[in-house]
């Protein structure tokens, strides 16, 4: 057992720290979504110019061939300096790896560089009003028409769709086939009249997500990723890429928020209340356990080539802990924590999404029960 970083890992971290010190974008502007987006786009451009946009990508596609551990370090460091995520985070984490795994040479040539440079933003069109956790139930239909596919349907929870040039779209191409087998995976050009984006205002008042209305949108056949009927398997590649690096960014943010709460409790003296102290200690323990479990998960993958039982737990640990933390803030911080426009109030509301986004905790428990613990379905 060795919980110190290797010389290569430290070298990687030092180089990144140096670069971040010189190129940090500063505080994110508080304001409307468009301003934030432009800021994050500029930030990605600067990451791209420095060769840091997607460290985990292979060198031949503009990455650094970073190991899982280095990729974790990257997200930790970006989080630590309170820099934002790059604008095209879904492109970097989802679209890129999926295209690398399933794309033709032409597709890789065409799409990968603009993903990296943020010239083309990507979004993910999987979920539908009636196909949330049950992805295989997608109803969006794609019908062949000459060299094109004509697509009609509705998508939901599409983060960043208002800025996206491309959408990773799962649609049904064979309504007769069993539900997992009738799906295909497309790269949909968002820039056409058949695609309408409507922002979905969430409980925080902001709109990170959108609804997508697709009415006879056209996709050239060459924009299919994988073969006809491969949609389910291609989608699994996307989903498997979803949570790895991001977790390290999120848990550093959790740590920072917790430190702020402890500072506040020390300042206002509430830390002396044994009930508050115990609650803070519980969140301290869970926050540290989240970080440790994430690293343990990476070590397992590096050694055995696949995740162990702990790998499925970090998102659950993080989301539950973050909710506990922001809830405790209401007791520790006082009236400000519940006042509209305060940072704590925002965190309190936003954290409710944590146990929903990227797979609800309940679905996660189902997956753990069936795939990790081997419990029977029926």
């Amino acid at each position: 057992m060795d919980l110190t970083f290797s010389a290569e890992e430290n070298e990687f971290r030092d180089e990144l720290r140096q670069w971040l010190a010189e190129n940090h974008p500063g505080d994110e502007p508080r304001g409307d979504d468009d301003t934030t987006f432009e800021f994050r786009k500029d930030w990605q451009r600067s990451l791209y110019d420095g060769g840091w946009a997607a460290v985990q990508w292979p060198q031949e596609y503009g990455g650094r061939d970073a190991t899982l551990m280095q990729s974790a370090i990257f997200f930790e460091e970006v989080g630590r300096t309170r820099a934002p995520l790059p604008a095209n985070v879904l492109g970097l984490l989802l679209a890129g790896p999926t295209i690398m795994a399933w794309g033709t040479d032409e597709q890789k040539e065409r799409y990968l560089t603009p993903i990296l440079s943020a010239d083309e933003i990507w979004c993910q069109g999987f979920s539908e009003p009636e196909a949330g956790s049950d992805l295989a139930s997608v109803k969006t239909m794609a019908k062949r028409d000459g060299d094109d596919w004509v697509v009609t349907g509705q998508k939901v929870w599409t983060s960043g769709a208002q800025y996206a040039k491309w959408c990773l779209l799962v649609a049904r191409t064979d309504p007769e086939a069993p539900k997992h087998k009738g799906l295909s995976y497309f790269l949909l050009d968002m820039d056409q009249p058949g695609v309408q984006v409507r922002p979905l205002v969430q409980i925080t008042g902001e709109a990170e997500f959108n609804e997508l209305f697709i009415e006879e949108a056209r996709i050239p056949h060459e924009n299919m990723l994988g073969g006809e009927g491969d949609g389910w398997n291609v989608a699994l590649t996307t989903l498997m890429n979803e949570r790895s690096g991001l977790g390290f960014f999120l848990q550093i943010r959790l740590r920072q928020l917790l430190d702020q709460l402890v500072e506040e409790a020390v300042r206002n003296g509430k830390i002396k209340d044994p009930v508050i102290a115990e609650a803070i200690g519980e969140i301290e323990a869970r926050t540290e356990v989240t970080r440790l479990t994430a690293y343990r998960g990476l070590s397992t993958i590096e050694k055995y080539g696949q995740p162990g039982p702990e790998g499925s737990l970090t998102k659950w640990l993080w989301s539950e802990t973050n909710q506990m933390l922001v809830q405790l803030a209401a007791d520790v911080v006082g009236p400000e924590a519940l006042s509209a426009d305060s940072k704590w109030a925002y965190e309190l509301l936003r954290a409710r999404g944590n146990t929903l986004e990227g797979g609800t905790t309940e679905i996660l428990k189902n997956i753990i029960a069936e795939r990790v613990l081997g419990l029977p379905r029926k």
Partner: protein
Amino acid sequence: MRFDFTDDQQEIKRTAKEMLASRSTLELVRSAAESKAYDPDLWKELCDLGWPGVAISEEYGGGGLGVVELAGLLEEGGYALAGSPLLATTACGAAIQEAGSEQQRETWLPRLATGEATGTLAIAGELAPDAAEADVIVLIESDRSGARLLAGDQASVSAVETIDPTRRYGIVTAEESAGEEMPGDPEAALAIGALITSAELVGICQRSLDVTLEYVKDRKQFGRPVGSFQAVQHKCARMLFQTEAARSATYFAAWAADADRDRLIEGASLAKATASEAGVEVTGSAIQAHGGIGFTWEADIHWFFKRAQLDAAYLDGTKPHRRRLAALAARKVTSPA
């Protein structure tokens, strides 16, 4: 970074698991518990294998391995619910190694390393494992202000029959003048004991989960295995969640004991806070998932629940350790490194 046992460490742990699978079966655990007597041959075998001295340095006759190896052995001991003075003796040895004087180390560590002497680590007035039979006792004042080293006959131990008949317990008190002062930090003396108890709890959790999974896959109601019901599945998922949380914290603490001494005390509280909570909740869930049968003396799951209760309380439970973590966190934000 490699947050996992090395091949050698894995091998030690695997060998221990195999040995205990035959030498501490649930039938043997039950018969030892019901007769309230340890199997003396098992302790002798553990001593022959060098387990009591695994983390004691070679200069004092130990194996010179680390706390990580010791934690691995205790995890397997918990998994098998082995009845022996191993936890008490190794906690005592670690405390003397941490906080004892040179002369105290020289006197006791070689004998503890071979298992020729047994020991315990006790907080005054609280339950400690294998105290009545201990040849040597590290006694921590109840306010943690100091530590004393007592030969068994210098202490007064009242044996207590606890809810856990798989192990013997007692409460240690001593005259103020009895024994010798230990020069080291009492918190450090407690830390390794707390983290190896956490390791035992990790093993108890893992076994309780394994036994439960086997049961819910097999037991049928309404024509299907009860393990196919979502309410049962989610309970089992939570058991895994808590077990793995305890494992992460405990392995970290064991590593810190060997390699990052500045974080040992924090790591031990992290481990004990997490593992004590996991221990009582996972074993409680295991009883619940067994249904009515889980509440009977017949089923073996209660042995794990009972041991977990005693381990959870030993050297402080979840709540005091959480408060210690909060105090450490407060210190960090007020005086940033």
